[in-house]
């Protein structure tokens, strides 16, 4: 679960600028896990922590100039993504795009008329509140995500965790918008197929 709620940006930013220690720590603790996921998605696990640490330095250096044209959260997620991308370039690496080749396969199948061969599963648990508290289900989603091709995983995390637009994802991953759409869609439907399986059999 997310840790304690932060005040809204208007209240929060002045407190951060005055270096209020308690709120600064709370702010960092709150955003660190999401930033780490984004750093991992772009630059890989080995250097993700370093990327996040560097991003925090950039964030606090630039904060006095932050013009609040976007939400503070959106702004810091952009910074960590850029930091990760810069780091990747420095090391002359790029995100593997192996996922693009295997994108044509959907986890669902259809008959000749285009109807479901096997209709979507019925879930015994459809309450959003109950779903987010099922630790096993979350572990299952993490496992499926970790087995996805890197490009699909990165696209999904940038969109859903980093709240990046498709345009921004194109820039970070250096792929076309149509490819980003396919990668995102494939990642989402594979996760859905995993929840279907989990709900039907109790196994991941």
């Amino acid at each position, binding site marked *: 679960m997310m840790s304690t709620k932060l005040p809204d940006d208007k209240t929060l930013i002045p407190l951060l600028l005055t270096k209020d220690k308690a709120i600064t720590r709370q702010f960092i603790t709150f955003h660190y896990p999401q930033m780490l996921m984004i750093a991992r998605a772009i630059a890989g696990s080995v250097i993700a922590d370093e990327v996040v640490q560097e991003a925090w330095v950039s964030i606090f250096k630039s904060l006095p100039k932050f013009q609040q044209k976007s939400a503070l959260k959106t702004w810091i997620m952009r910074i960590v993504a850029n930091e990760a991308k810069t780091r990747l370039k420095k090391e002359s690496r790029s995100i593997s795009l192996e996922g693009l080749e295997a994108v044509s396969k959907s986890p669902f199948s259809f008959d000749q008329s285009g109807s479901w061969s096997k209709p979507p599963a019925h*879930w015994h648990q459809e309450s959003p509140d109950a779903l987010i508290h099922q630790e096993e289900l979350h572990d299952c989603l993490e496992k499926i995500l970790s087995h996805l091709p890197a490009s699909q995983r990165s696209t999904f995390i940038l969109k859903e965790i980093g709240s990046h637009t498709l345009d921004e994802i194109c820039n970070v991953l250096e792929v076309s918008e149509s490819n980003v759409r396919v990668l995102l869609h494939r990642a989402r439907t594979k996760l859905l197929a995993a929840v279907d399986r989990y709900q039907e059999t109790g196994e991941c």
Partner: protein
Amino acid sequence: MLTCRDIESKSSDYIDNDLNIWQKMKYKFHLFMCVDCRRFIKHLKLTIYTYKNSLNQPTPKEKIDQVMDRIKEIN
């Protein structure tokens, strides 16, 4: 008329609100008629919601301390 296959393949565009008005109308018409596709869309949204809202890895205190140390020197 869209098929269930079309609904699946365009579902991300639909939930991201990236279909044009005409495509959206056709899409909604199919959903109105098809209980299976309605369930599919509902479950797709729930899957994303579940993942987004169940992040559960607290950051070790040392990592936060490291950041606090590094930003101390910034004026």
